[in-house]
């Protein structure tokens, strides 16, 4: 914990020439710099969300999730989730081709990052990665299935490299399960949430190239299929896209477009191994902590004044520890709830961690959609503008007129009300789906007629708590 907010208690008189308040300057690692009292502090725009009755929404969602879980546990039958085939056809675009094209685009973006304009909101590397790959593509995948699969920039280059090298053997990396992806996700989360300049085009391009190269070399040694289990983006998309109501299945040169209730694919998955469980708990923690780190609550915890937040450089250690603690807390809460549920179920079983953990994929997917909705609406505009005029020459490649980016909706009560309602709907739907999936998966694990209702209580409490936290993160005062 740090001392009171900087500048607090300063009493420099108006005519005093001595420096007034003191700030803990980040440069130089905690050196106290003298700053004349004058602080520019009208940084944060007023928040419309804070004036909405969000408490009532949170209470309503919590009750809905809780009651649904209890009713579901008591019910004899659950809604069946089945897939059906919509269309079947020949594969038109081979994955090798799309992957290779994606790789070339990736290289182009890295060049733009290294050599293009320095303003992150005009550089396509920053915009395409943070808005497209990390926000837009996952959101689209929640509806249309795993869109990352054809765009994976490793698949084709690794196949080509292995063919050229004549390498067919594996090096044994597969024995590590998803652990390399867990490490990759933690590193990525640290880069995104904690590091000083994840938006800097050159920094991002350098990091992306370094990461791409590391995965490429590993996959050349092990085989292109290893990417599916060892690369964090591939694993992340592969998991959260299982929630989608539409998806593509490929095999034998044919593609089958399938449809089913959200989560149908989750029930068809094999139980998660320990490394998969670690990955899902970390993914949940990353999303939660990314929301938490900008709240007034967290700022107070780390001793920062949210109205004059020093900047990322002042909280590197706090946020690193916070990220790790968020993972530990998430894993402990979920595994603990499942363990207590197992104990309550006694000999009748159920609540095997591997299967039931899959239900949390719905929460990860819903929170991702809700948490990044505003990013999509704001940075998305910059992305469109940059695609329209990538070289800042006044081009209109997308046929869009040269318009200013408009963020007026952020101060509009109607628009922000609609956005919060959308986020509320995403969070509530995700948790209701998670409850339904947990009930299904628990029954599957139970011996004979499933698990007793009382055994569902810990997990139900956790789901309710998760609902409350997710909506609170979206509605509380924050600096970003």
């Amino acid at each position, binding site marked *: 914990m740090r001392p009171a907010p900087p500048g607090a208690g300063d009493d420099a008189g108006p005519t005093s020439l001595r420096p007034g*308040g003191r700030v803990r300057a980040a440069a130089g690692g905690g050196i106290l710099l003298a700053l004349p009292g004058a*602080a520019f502090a009208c940084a944060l725009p007023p928040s419309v969300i804070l004036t909405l009755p969000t408490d009532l929404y949170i209470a309503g969602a919590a009750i809905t999730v809780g009651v649904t879980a209890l009713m579901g546990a008591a019910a004899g039958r659950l809604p069946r989730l089945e897939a059906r085939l919509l269309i079947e056809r020949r594969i038109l675009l081979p994955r090798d081709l799309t992957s290779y094209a994606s790789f070339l685009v990736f290289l182009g973006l890295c060049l733009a990052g290294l050599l293009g304009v320095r303003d992150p909101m005009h550089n396509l590397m920053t915009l395409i990665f943070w808005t497209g790959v990390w926000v837009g593509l996952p959101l689209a995948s929640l509806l249309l299935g795993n869109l990352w699969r054809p765009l994976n920039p490793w698949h084709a280059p690794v196949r080509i490299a292995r063919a050229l090298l004549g390498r067919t053997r594996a090096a044994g990396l597969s024995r590590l399960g998803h652990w390399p992806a867990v490490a990759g996700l933690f590193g990525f989360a640290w880069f995104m949430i904690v590091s000083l300049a994840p*938006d800097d085009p050159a920094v991002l391009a350098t990091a992306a190239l370094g990461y791409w190269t590391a995965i490429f070399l590993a996959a050349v040694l092990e085989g292109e299929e290893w990417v599916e289990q060892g690369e964090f983006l591939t694993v992340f998309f592969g998991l959260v896209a299982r929630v989608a109501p539409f998806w593509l299945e490929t095999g034998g040169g044919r593609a089958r477009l399938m449809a089913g209730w959200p989560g149908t694919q989750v029930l068809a998955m094999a139980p998660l191994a320990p490394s998969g469980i670690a990955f899902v708990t970390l993914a949940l923690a990353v999303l939660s902590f990314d929301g938490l780190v900008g709240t007034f609550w967290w700022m107070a915890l780390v001793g920062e004044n949210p109205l004059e937040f020093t900047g990322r450089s002042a909280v590197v250690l706090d946020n690193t520890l916070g990220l790790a603690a968020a993972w530990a807390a998430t894993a402990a809460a979920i595994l603990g709830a499942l363990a207590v549920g197992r104990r309550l179920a006694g000999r009748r079983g159920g609540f095997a961690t591997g299967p039931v953990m899959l239900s949390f994929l719905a929460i990860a997917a819903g929170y991702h959609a809700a948490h990044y909705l505003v990013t999509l609406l704001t940075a998305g505009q910059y992305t469109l503008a940059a695609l329209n005029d990538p070289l800042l020459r006044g081009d209109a490649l997308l046929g869009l007129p040269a318009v200013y980016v408009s963020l007026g909706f952020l101060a509009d009560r109607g628009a922000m009300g609609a956005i919060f309602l959308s986020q509320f709907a995403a969070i509530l739907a995700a948790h209701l789906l998670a409850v339904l999936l947990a009930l299904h998966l628990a029954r599957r694990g139970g011996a004979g007629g499933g698990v007793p209702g009382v055994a569902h209580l810990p997990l139900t409490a956790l789901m309710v708590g998760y609902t409350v936290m997710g909506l609170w993160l979206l509605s509380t005062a924050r600096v970003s």
Partner: protein
Amino acid sequence: MTLSTPFQPTRRSVLGGLAAGGALALSPARFASAQSAAPIRLGFQLHRTGIGAAYGRWYERTTQAALKVLNEAGGINGRPVEVIFEDDGTDPRRGAEVVEKLATQAGCDLIFGALFSHVVVGSAPRAGELKIPYLVCSEGFHVASGTLNRWTLQPGITDVRAQVSSMAPWVTQNLGRKVTMLFPDYAFGHDHRDYFSAALKAQGGEILELVPIPPTETSFTRYFPRIPAATEVLYHVMVGPAVLSFVKELGEFYAGGGRPQIFGFIDSLEAVDTASPGLEFLEGTHFWEGHCRMRQADASEHEDFYRAAVGVDANGASVADARDVSTYAHMFSCWETLFVIRDAMVAAGYQGPADRQRLVEAVEAMTTMPLSREHVQGDKVFNGRTHQVFGHQYISRVEGGKLVRVHATAIEDSLYPDAVDYTAMAF
């Protein structure tokens, strides 16, 4: 020292910049020959991300508009001008890195644009070490207080001490003498508390109560009973996400009547439409504005030119989105600073980094800046010794949801004794 107005080059600059100046005079809209037409590169330290991002967006837009005007008028000394925007994350450590990067890697002639005080304080020493002119747009008293260095100047916006102090005479003469202050309990609020209290007392006014509010507070109802009933003027400077809640709860507190006069700083509602639902309580209250957001009936031609160039309508909102209200009270500083740079470079006959010291001396030599296309906020006086500009401040009243100017202070109202003479410091 040779004094000059920005538009009257010194003898030295005329000699130094003869060739380029001649080309400019003959063909003002054209750039000089290829030999000397390499662009002048100006680094802009942009709060693109971090807590300053809402300001950064408009600072960039204003600067781009000014740059276009500048280049269409012939650039500087016959050379086109480029602005390299570099994001500092509104973070002092990155700020220092950005200064270094712009100076050494991007080869910028100077750096300008920083707004947030802690970033300026964290970056200015590096600019001093690198001996590169660092022109800030931060409102901070840190420049004029003498804690920075010879290379750091603030010629485009007045400082908070001048702003706050100059409000007191009008407030006491028109709103009342018994004042209660509500302010966030940290340096920003303390500046208002201290500077305004002193100025108020000098006018024969009286502070009835000081009500500091913790920065993390998001509900304010429990603080309002501390406002004495005898209060004639309520002075508030609440800022941050909870400002709308503050206004709403203050309105509920005075729902039964008895509301005193209310005076605030537009910082609370910068980039927010004062006609928004929920802000009705502000009707009839007064605000300080650094630059009148709403187009006033007597707006100058320069004011209209500026609005059109930046793409801002008569309500201070983006022409592309009437809900997108600009940071109008502050962003003129980027515009004016860019033209100060031009005038100083012309005066110094600036050719390249070897002339950086002369450039600083040329800014120091500036005195008056007339209301013009270059100084759209109003005429100003620059104090070369303290590196700080002084200008008019505006007081507006909310009428029908719009901010209508009721008073413009004289420049003299905001002057205070020099705290430093930077011109006596070594480069």
